[in-house]
């Protein structure tokens, strides 16, 4: 086994030194009747080329990975500068652990500090943590945090939050006495239904809104924040498309108390849904109720600046069952990739990529709206995703588009919303060329 340095001879000598005759004797403390005493029923060892071959043949069966696609819905195809994947493969980053020993972990601690700063700048918030598993768990943790802060047990959430996020929140909160009430959307605008805002009352811990929402519609966050605050609830904003930060008014500027987001768009491959990156930011006054790790500035005795993990008493290894969360390992290396992405793109790049997404989606939206029988059902402004209403069942159209034209045209809304059998969600990013968009439009014409 090439990953194990010791030779059989060395191994024998070491066994002798510790007074054993065979490796089996190492396990004498395990009751003999529960020892396996047989080989595991898994493959015999494969050589390096064989492993590559096995993995490549699996990958080859993921035919969707290399096709023109207009899927979004929380996971997005974006350009990532080449240096992102190179830098995260430096041994010093990817083979180190959580920075428990600051003197020999300053590289990790400094990028966490830069990451926290960048997340604050983009979300418009005071403080951000070192990351959560993904956007969905970040949102669930925000529910629990709001419950701790307000000591109220009801969360009101927009129906247009990513359906899988809501499912995760339901799992996380099912044993903590929190109830979740849903606000419907306006079938004309695709935004939150104003009349439903009466569900917010003085028992509400938090009002939770996604923008751009699951249909791609940009919400009027300022108005919704005021509504939440008027009943004493926290305002939690969810963002699944982080590229939108480059163009849209930040949640912080609109009055958000907590912002959670999925950071996958920042240089992270789609990888069939993970590993992705949860962003978590809040107002300074709530920092001690925050889940997750935080890096902060510290000085050594010579006055030299460094960074340490700080405010650790919130966490599970100290406060145990009274901790703000059970989270320990988070998404360290993915947070690094996002940090490199944000810095390489910089101010201008983040603005330009956001603008290109908005422009390309606007172009596609116009072209599709012009196809006979097709319409755009929601009137609100959209960023890089929008809902299309087809003249017949969307599943059938998309299936035909896939088999006849080799295009993955989007996500049927009936995936989660039963009433919308003819609707589908189209996402256009900077990676979709004009030609792909035109082919999509031609394809839709042909199959409808």
């Amino acid at each position, binding site marked *: 086994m090439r990953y194990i340095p*010791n030779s059989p001879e060395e191994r024998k000598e070491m066994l002798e030194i510790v007074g054993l005759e065979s490796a089996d004797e190492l396990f004498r403390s395990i009751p003999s009747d529960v020892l396996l005493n047989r080989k595991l029923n898994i493959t015999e060892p494969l050589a390096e080329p064989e492993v590559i071959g096995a993995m490549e043949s699996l990958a080859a069966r993921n035919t969707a990975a290399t096709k023109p696609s207009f899927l979004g819905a929380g996971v997005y195809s974006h350009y990532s500068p080449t240096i992102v994947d190179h830098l995260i493969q430096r041994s010093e980053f990817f083979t180190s*652990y959580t920075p428990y020993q600051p003197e020999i972990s300053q590289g990790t601690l400094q990028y966490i500090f830069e990451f926290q700063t960048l997340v604050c700048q983009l979300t418009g918030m005071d403080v951000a943590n070192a990351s959560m598993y993904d956007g969905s768990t970040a949102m669930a943790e925000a529910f629990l945090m709001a419950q701790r802060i307000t000591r109220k047990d009801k969360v009101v959430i927009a129906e247009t939050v990513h359906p899988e996020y809501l499912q995760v929140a339901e799992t996380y909160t099912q044993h903590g006495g929190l109830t979740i009430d849903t606000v419907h959307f306006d079938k004309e605008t695709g935004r939150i239904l104003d009349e439903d805002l009466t569900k917010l009352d003085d028992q509400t811990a938090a009002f939770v809104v996604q923008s751009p929402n699951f249909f791609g519609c940009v919400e009027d966050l300022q108005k919704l924040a005021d509504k939440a605050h008027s009943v004493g609830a926290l305002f939690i904003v969810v963002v699944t498309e982080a590229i939108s930060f480059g163009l849209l008014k930040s949640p912080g500027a609109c009055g958000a108390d907590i912002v959670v987001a999925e950071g996958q768009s920042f240089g992270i491959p789609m990888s069939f849904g993970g590993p992705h990156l949860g962003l978590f930011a809040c107002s300074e006054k709530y920092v001690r109720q925050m889940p997750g790790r935080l890096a902060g500035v510290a000085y050594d005795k010579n006055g030299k*600046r460094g960074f340490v993990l700080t405010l650790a008493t919130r966490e599970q290894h100290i406060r145990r069952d009274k901790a703000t969360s059970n989270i320990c390992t988070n998404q360290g290396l993915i947070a690094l990739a996002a940090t490199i992405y944000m810095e390489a793109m910089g101010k201008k790049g983040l603005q330009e990529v956001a603008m290109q997404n908005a422009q390309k989606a606007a172009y596609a939206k116009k072209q599709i709206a012009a196809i006979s029988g097709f319409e755009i059902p929601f009137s609100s402004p959209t960023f890089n995703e929008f809902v299309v209403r087809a003249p017949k069942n969307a599943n059938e159209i998309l299936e035909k588009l896939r088999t006849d034209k080799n295009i993955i045209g989007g996500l049927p809304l009936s995936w989660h919303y039963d009433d919308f059998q003819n609707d589908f969600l189209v996402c256009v990013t900077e990676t979709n060329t004009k030609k792909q968009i035109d082919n999509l439009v031609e394809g839709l014409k042909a199959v409808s």
Partner: protein
Amino acid sequence: MSIKKVTQHPSQNEELIFDRSQTGRVGYSLPKLDVEETNIDEIIPEELRRDDDLEGVPEVSEVDVIRHFTRISTWNYSIDLGMYPLGSCTMKYNSRLNEKTARIAGFTGLHPLAPEQEAQGALELIYNLQEDLAEITGLPGVSLQPAAGAQGEMTGVMLIRAFLDKRDGEAAKDRRVMLIPDSAHGTNPASAAMAGFSVKTIKSTDEGITDLEHLKTLCEQGGIAGLMLTNPNTVGIFEKNIVEICEVIHDAGGLVYMDGANMNALVGVARPGDFGVDVIHLNLHKTFSTPHGGGGPGCGPCCCTAELEPFLPTPRIVKDGEKYKLDYNRPESIGRVKAFYGNFGMMIRALSYIYTHGDTGLKEATETAVLNARYLSHKLAEDFDKPFASDPMHEVIFSHKKQSRKGVHTLDIAKRLIDYGFHPMTIYFPLIVEGAMLIEPTESVGRQDLDAFVEAMKDINEEAQTNPQLVIDAPHSTRIGRLDEATAARKPVLRWKPDMDSMTKTA
């Protein structure tokens, strides 16, 4: 004019990226917009757009970014540099082959909502890994959805809760006590709390194992939902009474959850399912070598008995004839713990690890990991206090007892190890040993490195006895000394701002 002398390579003084920013520098390259441009006001009205020009976001070149991260990377210790014996963390070699397979375009470019028939390879990979982990743990129900160990734990205890609620109905309300040993990881009680359990602590014996009598007493008090046990436990000792422990819990009407953090001592040798354990989580980033990445991403599969399987998170990945499918029709499921299907990239790496090792290699890794720890235990026992006499499995615990009388504590020994070129062991954990030093060498360390580590530890002991101040002031070799964590916590500075101090504070 003054000339500044360069006394250190610039890599030692790399500032924050924000201090490097210069207006107009560019580090990216996008194709020109290839569609007709629409007036932006028609797409997003002005009042919904940012008006702060992304204030503070840096502007740097590609070269700036490369140098910045390369320089700060050199301030990190890493597995590739040397032994990283953090107990309970299993810092084993992260193979480059696994990095390569995880980056195959057919994996990285796959959208999770792609039509199932065009994602068969990914689904099959998940399925195959589920099957292998079921075989390794002896527990047939496997979900790879949890993103890390703590989430796997939460999933595990939620399965227990769902099972009890179904079995006992209303009466399950009186069964909400989770027993957890005093030596457990902090995530255990934190996860139990998230599933709505209250925690009772079980004492450890002088031998360093669970106090069976105390366990029985607690069980007699009733209300037992289950037990969360790490095995081998956090002092590196195998719970020899494991079969009886499981029986006691089952007789009390509860279920047994095993924290799989220490599975590197068992793979291919013994299986939790055969002990009587009902549910376990694994850490792919420990036992199955996916990189720790400076604190994640992990992957925390949850493996359980057939009885608990219906409650696993949805969707499940199943095989239907020759096709692999996502099964959302799981009415008894605890629900979803994460969007999509888990940290798929980590699953590719773990399966590559399993394929590379195969049946014989996995066992060899386990044996070597245990032998290495046993070797250190043997070699260090003379100079360092070993609080428990039993033979350790894959990790061994010592205390600072022989050094503290000279004023040298565990923290000092850890910091001095840095000067000798090693990453320190896990310190002050578990809490049941005062001044604990928990050492886990893993199988990825050869005999020369083990001997060098032993030499270093012996030298440090010698220093502690003869020149304690040298150890107390360590480390002496790093670019930064011990940091004032109290001030950092009293006046937290958690983000850069334009008026922030630069590298060296001016008093």
